[in-house]
Structure formats: C-alpha cells, structure tokens
C-alpha cells in the first residue's frame, strides 16, 4: 500500500525521457526554484542530437555564428576526440539570451535531463539575469538579433570581397580578441535592426574621421611643430580593436565593421570569462539543492538520486596537483564548495566562521547567496568569501616560481598563517588583468612613418610568449604600417617585438 502511494507521487520512474516528462519535470523544478526565489529569464529548452551538440560546441556555444575556418577546426577536433571516445560531450550548453536557450542531448537519460534542467535552466539562467557583470555588459534581449546581423553582414562581405579577404581580417581580429574589450565603459545595447540602419551611416562618418586624422597637407615645415604636436592617442588605449576600428588609416569601411563585430562578440563573452567559478558554482549549488528538495518531497526515487550524485561528484572532482589528470583548479569544484560553505556559515557557523565572516555568520543563507551572486565576480568573490574550511578541504597551497631562484618555494599552505595569503593569491589568479599581459596602445607617429607603438607593462617580470611575434603580424595587417611592441619593466625596455622585423 505504502509502496503504491509513494510511487504515485514520483514524477517518473523510467530512465527513458519523453517530451511530457521533460515538461512536467521542468514545471516541478521551476516551482521549487521560485520558492527559493530564483529569478530567471523564460527558458527555451531545445532537444538536440549529439551531432548538433558538436556543432554547437564548434560555434563556441553561439547559436548563430559567422563562418570561419577556426570553427571548422574546432569541430574537427571535437568530432575526432568524441569518435575515439576520448571525451564525452558536455551535458549541456546554455546561452545567455532572453529567452535563455538551453540544449538537452537526446542521448541522455531522464535523470541527466532533470539534472541539466536544474543546472542550466534555473542555475545558469538566474545567474545571467542577476549578476551585475552580465547586467552591465551584455544585452540578453538582443544578442541573438545581433548574431544574425553579424552573420549576414559577413557573408555579404564574402560575396563582395572574396572569402580569403574576409577570412584574413577575421583571423587578425581573433588574434586580438582579448584586447577588444571595454573594461570600464558600458556598451550601448545593440539590435540587428538598428545596427543595420546605423552601419551605413557609421561607415561614412568613420571614413571621414580617419581621413581627417591623416590629413597629409603639412602645416608648417621644420621640426618646431613636431615638438608641440600632442601625442596621439592622448591617453594609452587598452581596447586595441576599438582603436583600430576608429583610427586605422587604410581600412575599408566594411573591414572596420568586421572589426566591430568581433569586438562586440568579445565583449559579450567578457563577463563569462570573469565569472567562471561563480557561475558554475552557482549552477552546481542549485542543481544540488533543487534536486535534493525534489527528493525530500518524494518526487524522485532513490535510484534517481544515486545516479544524479554519481555524475555530480564526477563533475566536481578535483584531482590533486600531482595527479596525471590535473589541469588547474576545477572551477566547478571551487565554486560549488564555496557556495555550499556560505550556506553552512549562515546556518551552522563555527567560532572560526564568526571571526572570519562576522557579517554573514547566522544570516539568511538564501539572501546572502543571492547577494554574493549579484554583486561579485570571481576575483572579488574569492577575496570576500573563500573560507578557511574550503581551503583546508581542498588542501590548497601556493608556490612561488621565480626564474632568479633555482628552486620553487612553498609560500603558504592551508594553515592559520597562510589562509589570508592563499586567498589573496588565488583571487589574483582569477583577475583577468593579471592573467593576460597588459598591453596598451601607446603612441602613433602621426607626422612620420605612421608607426604604431604599443607598451606591455610587465607584471612580476613575466615576459611575453613568442606568439607575440605572430600576433604582431596580425596587428600589422590591420594597421597597415610598422608596429612596435615594447615590454616595459618600469621605464626600462626589456623586450621588443617589431613587425616588419627590423634589419640589424
């Protein structure tokens, strides 16, 4: 009797999924998520096959992308490792758009589908909607629109100017993609329709501006004028692609527009690169919490939970630094551990927690978590919320690898004296500013050979990798005149790259 009563409240018992089951399951999860106060965009759940998943992979998760060989390369390598069984496909891909698009793979069983719905459709989705970086930097309403515009524009360019021509411009832009982001200015919202209207106008206007900058009529002869000429640009520019789009002397209007498209897409992905730990941690925390809640309410079976926990644990596994599987700190592990720990600190604070987190110990865990989700990025989140317990559990330690020393030094471990330092170093590791070389456009020789000079401000004496030479070639293609890159340690030039190479 009891048995039949129990099974009647179960949402599903078979491992086969069906559209009805998915709908019911989504509804149930959605209701529980609402009770927990998760605010989400509407969901658009799309069921796709594994081949389509590989397609989605290759397009870096963008549902519509312009054509480029690098996506083909991505596809080939995904396909190859998938076919050889080296790699399983991700369970889900979710797109920061409104409605929020999540892909479910048809090969997965019902347990996995439920897990993905909880993880992507409620976890990631609410993060996209709530986190300040996404709110400031991306426009979920118009991204799909913009991608459509970009794709059409680029294929039109290909028709008009030839595939190779367009391809080489995109290559160059991709090489500089990480330097195509505004870090402090909020971009305007974009939509395909407006974009098309503005595009023509912009092309004409821009060309005029550029011509003005390069006015060739000499104002006065002699070196006197040169001294007074203000440096151009007056401030160093960190958004290299933007600078090129606006000021590069030889580009055609369509080439400027292509730069702009790549720049906009880089900007769209910028928040994702800064919130990986938080985003995954948040999504893992909520699939864990939501599915447990379903279990407590008797909606899913024991078998479901076992299966779910098995894949959950494999997702958040962290191999040790000396394991052959180690490839850096797993953002899922770190994020999930921190989110769970915040809840623990709120609900069952220890003496240590009260000392470290007097503000949140004993507070409402859900509000605190939401506060953390909304107002932080990886760097500040770790700096603010990484607790000694998590560091102990993960057995974190930090090393100093200095090329002036012949040995690596262990600078801090998970003990009383090391927590603060560990936390700072780990946070710094997630600071994009430290991770990527800091390169800015320093000056343009406006009166002379039009050479472009960039400065790399060295961080902890870290040099640039040799790939800089290659990237400089791309920069040279976009600029059209000589390009110089100096690595500066203080005022001293440590390393110089030139394109074309200087004869010596």
């Amino acid at each position, binding site marked *: 009797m009891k048995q039949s009563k129990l099974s009647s409240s179960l949402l599903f018992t078979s491992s086969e999924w069906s559209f009805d089951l998915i709908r019911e399951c989504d509804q149930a999860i959605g209701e529980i998520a609402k009770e927990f106060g998760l605010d989400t965009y509407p969901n658009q759940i799309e069921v796709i096959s594994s081949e389509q998943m590989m397609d989605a992979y290759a397009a870096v998760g963008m549902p519509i992308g312009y054509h480029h060989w690098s996506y083909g390369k991505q596809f080939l390598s995904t396909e190859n490792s998938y076919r050889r069984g080296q790699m399983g496909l991700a369970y889900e891909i979710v797109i920061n758009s409104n409605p929020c698009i999540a892909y479910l793979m048809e090969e997965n069983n019902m347990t996995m589908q439920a897990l993905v719905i909880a993880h992507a459709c409620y976890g990631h989705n609410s993060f996209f909607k709530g986190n300040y970086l996404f709110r400031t930097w991306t426009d979920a309403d118009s991204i799909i629109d913009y991608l459509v515009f970009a794709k059409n524009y680029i294929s039109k360019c290909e028709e008009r100017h030839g595939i190779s021509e367009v391809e080489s411009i995109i290559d160059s832009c991709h090489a500089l993609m*990480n330097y195509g982001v505004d870090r402090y200015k909020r971009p305007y919202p974009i939509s395909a329709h407006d974009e098309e209207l503005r595009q023509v106008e912009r092309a004409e206007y821009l060309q005029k501006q550029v011509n003005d900058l390069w006015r060739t009529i000499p104002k006065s002869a002699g070196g006197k004028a040169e001294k007074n000429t203000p440096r151009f640009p007056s401030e160093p520019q960190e958004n290299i692609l933007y600078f090129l789009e606006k000021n590069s002397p030889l580009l055609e209007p369509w080439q400027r527009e292509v730069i702009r498209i790549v720049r906009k897409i880089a900007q769209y992905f910028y928040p994702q690169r800064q919130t990986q730990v938080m985003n995954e941690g948040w999504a893992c925390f909520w699939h864990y919490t939501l599915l447990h809640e379903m279990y407590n309410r008797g909606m899913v079976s024991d078998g479901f939970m076992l299966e779910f926990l098995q894949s959950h644990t494999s997702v958040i596994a*962290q191999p040790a630094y*000396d394991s052959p599987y180690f490839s850096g700190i797993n953002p899922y592990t770190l994020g999930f551990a921190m989110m769970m720990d915040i809840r623990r600190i709120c609900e069952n604070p220890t003496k240590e927690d009260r000392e470290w987190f007097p503000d949140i110990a004993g507070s409402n865990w859900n509000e605190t978590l939401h506060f953390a989700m909304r107002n932080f990025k990886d760097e500040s989140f770790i700096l603010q919320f990484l607790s000694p317990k998590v560091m102990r559990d*993960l057995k974190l330690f930090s090393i100093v690898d200095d090329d002036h020393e012949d040995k690596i030094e*262990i600078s801090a471990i998970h003990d009383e004296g090391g927590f603060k330092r560990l936390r700072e170093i780990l946070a710094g590791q997630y600071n994009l500013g430290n991770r990527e070389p800091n390169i800015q456009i320093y000056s343009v020789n406006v009166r002379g050979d039009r050479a472009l000079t960039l400065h790399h401000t060295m961080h902890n004496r870290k040099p640039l990798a*040799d790939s800089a030479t290659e990237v400089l070639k791309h920069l040279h293609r976009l600029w059209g005149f000589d390009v110089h890159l100096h690595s500066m340690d203080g005022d001293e030039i440590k390393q110089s790259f030139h394109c074309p190479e200087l004869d010596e």
Partner: protein
Amino acid sequence: MSYIIDRRLNAKHKSAVNRQRFLRRYRDQIQKSVSDAVSSRSIKDIDKGGKVSIPTKDIGEPVIHHGNGGHNTRVLPGNKQFSTGDRVNRPEGGAGGGGGKNASDSGEGEDDFSFTLSQEEFLDFMFDGLELPNLIKRQLSGIEEFKKVRGGIANEGQPGRINIVRSLRAANMRRIALTAGKRKRLLELEEQLDAIDQQEESSRDLLLREELIAEMAKISNAIKRTPWLDTFDLKYNLQIKQPIPRSKAVMFCIMDVSGSMDQATKDIAKRFFILLYLFLQRNYEKTEIVFIRHHTSAKEVDEDEFFHSRETGGTVVSSSLKLMKSIIEDRYSPNEWNIYGAQASDGDNWGDDSASCKELMSDHLLPLCQYYSYIEITPHDHQALWRTYEEVHEAYPDKFSLQHIIGVEDIYPVFRELFHKKVA
C-alpha cells in the same frame, strides 16, 4: 514558463561550411598528409577516407599570453607533504609547476592535429590537380540511354497526356473564329430591329420585323450548334527522348608475371593499378578493366588471378600488346571507348622482342589509345625495353609516357607526375 522545442530534425551539419573552410585553408598541408597516407596504406584501404594529421604549429591561432619566466605565484590543490617555506625542485617537463599553463592549452599538446576525412574528401585531395590527358572522345553510345524531357505541345498524343488548359484555349479560339461572321450579322439584325421598334407603331413594317426575328433565331441557333469541343482542339504534352551522352573508358592493365617479378614488385604494380582505376572511375561513369598478364605468352585473366597467381618463365612483352590489340578490335571500338593502357614490368624482355614491341606500339596501339603509361619497377639499370619505349615516347610525347619506380614511396609521386594538369 518554459518552451520545449524538438530540434533534432533540424539540419545536422551546421558546421559543414566551417569544416570546408578549414579544409580549403589547409589544402597544401592536407594534401601532403594524404599523399603520405596513400603510400603507407594497405591496398584494401587505399580509397577509404581516414585520419590525416597536420602539424599543430601550422594551424595555430596565436594570441598574446605570458611566457615562462619572471616571478610566478600559483595556488594548487591537494597538498600532502609541504609546509610553508619548503623549497622543492622544479618538476621535469614543465608540467605542474610554472609551465603548466602551456600544457593545458590545447589538449593534444604539441602533437599533430589530426582529424578524419570522408572517402569523397580523401579522393578529392588524392586526385586534386590531376587530369586525364587527351580527354576528347565523349562518344554517344547506342541503345537504352535516353532520358525523356518535355518538348512543348503537340496535336497528337495519348489521352493521358492531354493538356487541358491548352485544349480548352484552342476550343475557345475555334468557337470565336467560326462564329465571328454570324455574330456580326446578329448585331446588325438587332440594330435593324431596334430601329423598327423605335418607329411609330402605325408606320412599322411588321412583315420585315417578322423576317428579322426569324433570321435572328436561325443565326443564334447556328451559333449554339457550333461544337464546344472538337477533336482537333485537343492538345497534348509532348515528350521527346534525348540521348544521354555517356563516356566510357576501358583500361588495360598489363603486368609481367615472369619469374623475375617478385611479390614486392607485383605489390607495387598493384598499387599503381588501383590508383589508376580509382582515378578513372572518378572521370568516367563507366569504367571497364581488362587484365592481361604475360610471360612468354599473354592471357586475359580476372582480377584475382591477375594479382595472385604465380607463374614463371621468360618474358615476351609483345605477346601482351598483341592480345591488347585483338581485344580492342573485338570488344572496344575506339569510336565508343576511351582506351587507356598501363603497363608495369621490371624491364626484362626477350632479347629481340623489343623491336616488335615498338612497332606494335607505334603503328597499332597508340593511334587507338588515349594514353599509355609504362612504369618500370626495378632498382637496377634499364634494359632494352626501356630504351625502346623511350624512342616511342619521343615520337608520341602526348600519348605515351614512361616512369621509373624503385620503392613503394615512389608510386604516388610518379602517379601525380604522369597525370598532373598540363597547362595549355
């Protein structure tokens, strides 16, 4: 509120274009890899698609990142034995420590980038830039090969092919044409009748009125009696037979199986023949192969026997050429067939036979053939046959070519050499 959409039926190959772009961009590297693969593959798999690799460094997408060196700090998980202030040696190979970033960049590290080509793509790369020389005969061959195409409208045909619209239009035209005079007369009469009706009642010519009415009735009757549809209105859709141009090729594989040809040499010859066969198949809809093997006498055999059976004896090359000539005369009229010859041998020939080879070749075979290629597989010096054939080559540089192969790795390059596109 969620929407659930089934996208599984959507196009699968969204990335196909990007994949093509990739293949296009790295054409040269892939071609090189394909040609390596062709040399090293077993004969059975030679036309299969398959894995090709190109060096990772060629396809890199450079981005600026930090190199090794400088002052690095890093947090790692899973401490087991360290305590603060410990100093340890740098790990070997750069993994784990400061250099770890590079290793995780691209899964496969510094290896080659490898991926799978489909059979079609593989063959495309294999035969890219090659063409069959002297490809002129595209002879229409006889029976059966027709296709039906629509050929406009005809007045005769089967009832099933009636074109209703055109038939009714014709009927309409006929009716208008046949009744035009009568309708004109009818109008005149009506006018006269109206004129009479407008006169004062007393002055009306009643007799004339009666006559008019009677004539009008007669004419309307005649108009009505015009047939609505007549047999000669009927139009039919016409279908005509068009012959399909077909090109057919026959390839003669001639191999020396005398005692001097060992298994390795035969294997090389076989690879060459297979390449040639695949290539012909891509150029002609219909390709036939005739296998001729010879020692002192020649014999037409099937594929299996051609490649596998062993015979010994001396060598008389001209016997095979004679056989080829008689087969052409029997079955493959040069008017209909493109004829290709490929001969492989180790260069041995009966002392005074070479002269008759030359004669057969120049006078009888080459005028019939599109192209004849001879490969000599031998690590030794050339003998009489090679020199004789060199003379033939000088006489017919377009139609006859000869190449020398030493080992397996020469086959594909030699093959490309034989068939590379000649700029006109």
